[in-house]
């Protein structure tokens, strides 16, 4: 049931019959044994990989002729590939894992041994960015070409679906606040719709702008996202500043806001490829900042109508910064990872400037 990685200090899990057979047939290869359900699982190093795989397929006492599944997995610092085998001749089954570091995602292909691996490897390549050396044709299979990111990696966020929902909620909150400042009347149903519409318009504008500038889809998304974030911030700060008597946030609202801060910080940290420790620290800092802000009596008040213009400008400026940074990075011939970091850096600088 529990999965333990083998360490010298801890008693290693009992190797199963297959693992023992493998150790016997392939002396000198390190097999880390993992206890999993249904299948015996061994983890091998990348160096021995091809040799082990050839033995698995070819050796008469193993004869794993059926590759039933090949999966990738993202463990934040390492990428893993898992092979599930079955042998029709002997009726035994085995799972083999191999890990590769994040910045060097290369694993030798097995598509010449099992034809079934062909599509699986293509899919794993496009989803996780693991390069299967020697694969005849690593075109993307399910997604379009030139996507530029790896959807199943943990650093890749889900699409904007939550944003829209949050949009509704924040629209409702806004309506409430307006109602409160207007003297307790029931919220006019128009205003919330208006805000949602304004947001949609903003998104569209940002998108069109990005398209007009000929940004790549990735940059475009970033620009739109930036615009939305800005809008959201404005809504919040503007509302706090605009209300006659800034009512302290209710417990629920506070918790929600906090959760939002945490989520944001975390996804940012993930996006920058931080380690788990750093990520924690980063999030903690964000929370601290948030609490301080709350204690300090909310964001500084600002005139709402003036902001209406500036937020779009700001989003545009931000988008420009992103584009510039990206182009610079490309011109310098950076790798994708580095490029991302570079852009993130530029954005941070920009925000710092804005805050100042």
């Amino acid at each position, binding site marked *: 049931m529990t999965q333990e990685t083998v360490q010298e200090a801890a008693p290693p899990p009992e190797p199963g019959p297959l693992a023992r057979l493998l150790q016997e047939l392939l002396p000198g290869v390190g097999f880390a044994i993992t206890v999993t359900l249904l299948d015996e699982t061994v983890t091998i190093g990348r160096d021995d990989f091809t040799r082990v795989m050839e033995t698995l397929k070819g050796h008469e006492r193993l004869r794993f002729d059926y590759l039933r599944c090949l999966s990738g997995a993202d463990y934040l610092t390492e990428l893993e590939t898992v092979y599930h085998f079955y042998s029709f001749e002997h009726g035994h089954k085995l799972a083999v894992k191999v890990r590769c570091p994040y910045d060097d995602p290369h694993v030798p292909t097995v598509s010449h041994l099992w034809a079934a691996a062909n599509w699986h490897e293509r899919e794993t390549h496009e989803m996780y960015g693991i390069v299967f050396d020697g694969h005849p044709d690593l075109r993307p299979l399910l997604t379009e070409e030139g996507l530029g990111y790896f959807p199943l990696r943990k650093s890749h966020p889900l699409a904007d*679906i*939550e944003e829209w*929902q949050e949009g*509704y*909620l924040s629209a*409702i909150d806004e309506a409430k606040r307006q109602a409160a400042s207007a003297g307790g009347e029931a919220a006019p149903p128009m205003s919330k719709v208006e805000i949602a519409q304004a947001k949609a318009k903003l998104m569209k504008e940002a998108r069109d702008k990005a398209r007009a500038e000929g940004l790549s889809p990735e940059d475009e998304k970033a620009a739109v996202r930036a615009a939305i974030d800005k809008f959201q911030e404005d809504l919040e700060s503007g509302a706090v500043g605009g209300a006659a008597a800034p009512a302290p946030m209710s417990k629920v609202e506070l*918790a*929600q806001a906090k959760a939002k801060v945490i989520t944001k910080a975390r996804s940012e940290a993930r996006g920058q490829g931080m380690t788990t420790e750093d990520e924690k620290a980063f999030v903690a800092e964000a929370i601290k900042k948030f609490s301080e802000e709350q204690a300090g009596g909310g964001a500084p008040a600002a005139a709402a109508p003036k902001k209406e213009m500036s937020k779009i400008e700001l989003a545009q400026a931000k988008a420009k910064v992103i584009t510039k940074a990206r182009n610079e990075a490309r011109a310098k011939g950076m790798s994708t990872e580095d490029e991302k970091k570079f852009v993130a850096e530029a954005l941070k600088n920009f925000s710092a400037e804005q805050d100042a």
Partner: protein
Amino acid sequence: MLGILKALKTTIQAAARKPVTVQYPTEKKELPHRSRGFPVLLWDFDKDEPFCTGCQVCARYCPVDCITVTMKDNPKKAAGKSKRKKIVDHFYLDYARCMRCDICVEVCNFDAIVMNNTWEGVELSRYDRQDLVLDKDALLKQSRTGRLKDPFREPMGVAHSGWSPKVEEDEEAEETNASEEGGEG
């Protein structure tokens, strides 16, 4: 040739059977009691208010995030007409995104939401997607006008599938629920 003759025999036999189709728009098949159309809210006729307290449990458990709910203090409570402390303020359900998984019904502690088992729950074609985002009034209409006669609420369903403990609908439960929401946020 023999095979074709055999096939012909089969078709001739089938031709003598009664048709199995119905002339849909004019003639409608009876829907089974458990039929799962899109979710709707229920109206509490005793208290003349919705059952829904706006506790947001359904919104949190909906796998596709298509519910948006907010809660408000129940004005009827102040007037002493109802025992519900909190009541739903806004309720938006995006039918275009809903996948009719029944999860919101199972997790609701107040039996406030059910799957529509009438034809109105499935005949929902619209010209504009935005029209499929229904608000509280539209969701309550079915039940309020009495057209949702006998909704399927499996009494064991909720407790048994382990989603959430079924709590009595009393003030205590509402309070714990409300504070829970605040805590988990």
